[in-house]
């Protein structure tokens, strides 16, 4: 029996081989290569040959002290925080409403379909659509606002830095709250109904049930949402790039757009773009490491602990036995 299972082991390697090869070529090697380029003088269109810099960290120092990169990093974090908080609150509110058994909202299914729809449409299309919607002097938003008398003159929204940021935040929230809502609903539906029944028996009202029963039970799913959203947010590219090309005056410049601009426009600074990429790589790895730590298979971890304790106890016993034998 043992021999048989041993002979099948090679298929484990064979079946995972295509993944391994593709990963090495298309992910591991480019990652390593990006890291190396960060330490070199590789720049200029069409260049592929490079030399290591005398000061190895020169590119990293340049990037970290560059006001444009610092600004881009601040923007990226700002845009993410300001879209994630309203997105999560709105999604939580809707998820609480849609899962509350006391309200049966008519058309619940249709609402879910509509709330999620912006998420499925190409971000490039949405970025350019919003650019047109906020057009000056006669874009649809200006048309509506003047027609209903909110403003007397058309307003050139997209040259204002704060408005440009605000619209990017709005687009991101608008695209993602439906997704987050569906995830949270499935989390809430996964909670055992008995817990809710017990809360009902105890006379808890809607708000108390939500605060003391629902929220603590979807903590893991909220963490999952937070981390995936943060990683996506740190890579935000399509919307800021196509909506206003990072403008006005770099107000919507994110780190991804910065990296793209460094490497594929101007003087084609592949080395600096690579250094900036590696800085983001380290940040994202740290974030996903935290996620990995929290989402480990908890039962497996427990099992490991128990086994370790048993092994330790066994060793102690044998040591004591040996001691006893000597005495």
């Amino acid at each position, binding site marked *: 029996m043992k021999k048989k299972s041993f002979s099948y082991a090679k*298929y484990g390697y064979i079946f995972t081989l295509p993944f391994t090869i593709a990963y090495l070529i298309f992910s591991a090697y480019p990652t390593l290569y990006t890291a190396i380029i960060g330490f070199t003088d590789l720049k200029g269109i069409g260049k592929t040959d490079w030399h290591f810099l005398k000061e190895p960290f020169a590119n990293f120092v340049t990037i970290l002290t560059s006001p444009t990169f610092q600004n881009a990093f601040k923007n990226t974090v700002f845009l993410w925080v300001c879209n994630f908080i309203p997105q999560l609150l709105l999604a939580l509110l809707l998820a609480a409403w849609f899962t509350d058994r006391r309200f049966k909202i008519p058309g619940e299914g249709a609402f879910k379909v509509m709330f999620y729809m912006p998420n499925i449409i190409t971000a490039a299309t949405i970025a350019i659509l919003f650019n047109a919607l906020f057009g000056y002097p006669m874009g649809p938003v200006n048309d509506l606002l003047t027609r209903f008398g909110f403003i007397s003159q058309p307003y050139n929204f997209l040259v204002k830095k704060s408005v440009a940021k605000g619209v990017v935040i709005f687009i991101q929230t608008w695209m993602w709250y439906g997704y987050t809502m569906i995830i949270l609903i499935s989390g809430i539906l996964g909670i055992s109904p008995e817990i809710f029944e017990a809360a009902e028996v105890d006379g808890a009202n809607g708000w108390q049930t939500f605060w003391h029963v629902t929220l603590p039970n979807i903590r893991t799913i909220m963490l999952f949402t937070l981390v995936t959203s943060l990683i996506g947010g740190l890579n935000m590219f399509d919307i800021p790039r196509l909506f206003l090309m990072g403008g006005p005056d770099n107000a919507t410049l994110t780190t991804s757009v910065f990296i793209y601009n460094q490497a594929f426009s101007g003087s084609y600074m592949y080395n600096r773009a*690579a250094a900036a990429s590696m800085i983001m790589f380290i940040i994202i790895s740290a974030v996903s490491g935290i996620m990995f730590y929290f989402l480990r298979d908890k039962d497996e971890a427990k099992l490991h602990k128990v086994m370790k304790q048993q092994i330790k106890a066994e060793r102690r016993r044998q040591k004591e036995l040996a001691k006893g034998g000597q005495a």
Partner: protein
Amino acid sequence: MKKSDNHHYLAKTLIFIACVFLAILSLFPFVVMLVNATRSTTQIQQHAVSLIPSSYLANNLKVLLGKSFKPSVGFMNSLIISVCTTLLATYFSTLTAYGLVVYDWKLKRAYFSFIMAIMMIPAQITMIGFYQMVYKIHMTNKLSMLILPAIASPSMVFFMRQYMIPALSLEIVQSARIDGAKEFLIFNKIALPIMKPAIATQAIFTFVSSWNNLFTPLILLTDQKKYTLPIMISLLRGDIYKTEYGAVYLGLSMTALPLIIVYLALSKYIIAGVALGSVKG
């Protein structure tokens, strides 16, 4: 009792109104886009919001296609890339998951831990090295460079494994072996059909994210004949369409409408799929 009933009814009405408001917010930009695609630039300049379609669709189409925007080229390239990416990613992810679930091998646990560790790292972040590698071997305008990386899709392997553990009974595999079936045949004939629901879910999302991807194609593709749809869309922002509002709205509609139709047709499965994706999270 009566008072609490009234209270309840009021809350329900307010919730319904809030939902209607959000639904309008979701639809409004697309309605404006579709209606303006049929209106002339002059009409749009007079009143940019209208719910009544006009008769300038053909005219807008002529203006749109007279310039560098070639939706059919973008559509075909995107279709080739998305279909191949979806096929490779789902097949090889299921295969890898099968290797991790069915067989006992020394590095199995380490391999799976590694997949979990890398699955959150986005490909975008190492694009400089990827671009340099592809440029060096003169493959920048080859669609295959956008397709083949899909063979290694860590997060999909993770999902497939989580789905496979309860779905595939090892006894079935064992009895197929006794009947003399080869290992690859067992995978193709027994495991793949069992995994169909998981594959369908993952296929939809891989297809959509591949279809919508802008960053990688934008970096690798310089030949206009190889442009994908998102790159074509980005041309609409260029100076050549600056004053052609009707044509721009039409171009955007042409890229969004197929997705909207497919989404509405499959919405039940897509929304169930989003929910499923989070279950193990």
